[in-house]
């Protein structure tokens, strides 16, 4: 294709595109319109519902709690998985299929089964862990995030020559720590970020475990509002959606940066 040729979208493709867009956008637009109705009058258009949510101290508390839980889950998952996946790629490549299989378990085990099992298994743990969201919930969320972070990191490690980079670093006098932090981590940054954003999205939206374990997280708050206030429920749902989208856009941004670099490699070699 020449530089001046414009790419045209086939009419049939355009129809499917519009249908797909409608499928996703109509519920969102409906929710938006619903959220703009007045709480007392039921008429459009007012931002009262958003005001109600933003002024509710529980909203900020629940949102902050979920956000902190997300960060803690991300940090703990990366601390556990980055060195593990690095070591597996470097020294134990035969374990990769085993870990990939283990990583699928959270997809297979329903959250309700997981939470019941965890409540039972972790019962003997101290109260500061078992009774606190930053203990119990994070433990559960690390399990939920495991496949997302593992597969992201695995793809990231497969994209670099782990052996050669490690050996090059060591031959120059670097310790394992220096190699991990200065050579390996910067080169799997995109993969780690991708896993992190997926974890953020999961934790910000996880309801079953938090609800059954009786912790007030953001999704639990949304459910509470949904049961008690119709219009603000639509507003808070949209706000939740916005947070998830922000994470997805960040992921897209990171992914685009990596693609650009790869393309340049192909062109210069």
């Amino acid at each position, binding site marked *: 294709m020449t530089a001046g040729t414009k790419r045209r979208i086939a009419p049939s493709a355009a129809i499917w595109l519009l249908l797909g867009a409608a499928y996703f956008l109509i519920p969102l637009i409906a929710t938006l319109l619903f959220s703009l109705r007045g709480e007392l009058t039921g008429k459009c258009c007012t931002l009262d519902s958003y005001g109600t949510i933003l002024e509710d101290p529980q909203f900020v508390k629940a949102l902050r709690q979920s956000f902190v839980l997300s960060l803690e889950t991300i940090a703990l998952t990366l601390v556990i998985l980055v060195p593990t996946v690095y070591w597996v790629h470097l020294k134990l490549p035969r374990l990769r299929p085993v870990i990939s299989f283990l990583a699928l378990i959270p997809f297979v085990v329903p959250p309700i089964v997981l939470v019941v099992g965890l409540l039972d298994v972790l019962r003997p743990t101290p109260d500061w862990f078992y009774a606190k969201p930053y203990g119990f919930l994070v433990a559960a969320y690390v399990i939920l995030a495991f496949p997302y972070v593992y597969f992201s990191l695995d793809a990231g490690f497969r994209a670099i020559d782990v052996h050669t980079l490690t050996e090059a670093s*060591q031959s120059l006098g*670097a310790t394992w720590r220096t190699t991990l932090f200065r050579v390996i981590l910067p*080169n799997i940054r995109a993969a780690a970020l991708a896993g992190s954003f997926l974890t953020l999205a999961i934790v910000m939206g996880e309801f079953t475990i938090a609800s059954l374990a009786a912790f007030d997280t953001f999704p639990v708050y949304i459910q509470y509002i949904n049961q008690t206030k119709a219009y603000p429920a639509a507003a808070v749902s949209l706000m939740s959606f916005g947070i998830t989208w922000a994470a997805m856009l960040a992921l897209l941004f990171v992914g685009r940066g990596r693609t650009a670099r790869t393309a340049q*490699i192909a062109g*210069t070699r």
Partner: protein
Amino acid sequence: MAYVELQDLHRVFGDVVALDGISLSLERGEFVSLLGPSGCGKTTALRLVAGFDRPDRGRIVVDGKDMTRVPPNRRDMGMVFQAYSLFPNMTAERNVQFGLRVRGVTREERARKVAELLELVGLGQAATRYPHQLSGGMQQRVALARALAIEPRMLLLDEPLSALDAKVRVQLREEIRRIQSRLGITTIYVTHDQEEALSVSDRVAVLSHGRIEQIGTPSEIYGSPATPFVAEFIGTMNRLEATVLDGGRGEIDHGGVRLTVDAARGRQTGERVLVLVRPESLELSVSANGAEGENILVGEVLTHTFLGPVTRLKLIGPSADLIADVPTSRVDSLPVGRRVVAHVPSSGARLLSLTEDPVSGEPDRDGR
């Protein structure tokens, strides 16, 4: 005592014997190549020297110090890898600086050294470029500068040119040799490319099946192969199986043809030997009646292969097939199908006892 000594190195991976008692000494500033086919153990030997792997048996001594159990980051050995090994997240400059930063060298000293080394490898202008903005040849030059920046005890090169195209390969190997000579750094160079090894090395060690078949200067390796394997691996060699007729006069019998070969003098009568003759040592002339003079083999020209200044002729004969190189200007007088005689020089042939070689097994009977 030599500067570097590899003493009886053994390494086994499962059922595979990668190294079967390698011993090698290098003097300070020497450039030694480990040459051999894939799987011969050359890279394993280099990895043991670098510290990325440990021998099952044997020792590695550098400058009088036993390095066998020293971890790679404390060996002070600069290495250039076969794969592009620059850190993708760092510019060329920062790649070269890496080892110096790890050692806590001051910023000014680092900057001075990096500029000097990038200039040395001819990449002064590319300091701020990232690896993905450099060609393969440029990346390997930066890798070389990076390996040299730490002023290593030794420079280890693991087929650093194998991913490059032919022209860049020749150019870069000459540069590597120039830089090595200038810095006087002791170097081990691993390659499967005989031309590369012979053109840049002070000495070449030819490996096969985890053993060193022969160590010597490039001319010794080429001119006086010690085993049939070396003869086969280095260049092209005519291999003539023969029986010693008269050890005193150096006479042998090859397929009913009596030849005189200096190297056969002193051999026992009746001994089975392998006569090795380089294609360029055979002198060809057009045969009139097939019985011209002594020390000749007759044959018919089967093919011509143009190699530039010389053309390689394959001859098919009653006793053996032969390969002979003749100046391209003469090739018109030796067309395909022409019956020719090949004069075997009595002084230019090597002789190996057929009982000496445990590695190569039966000699090739097609004359190559």
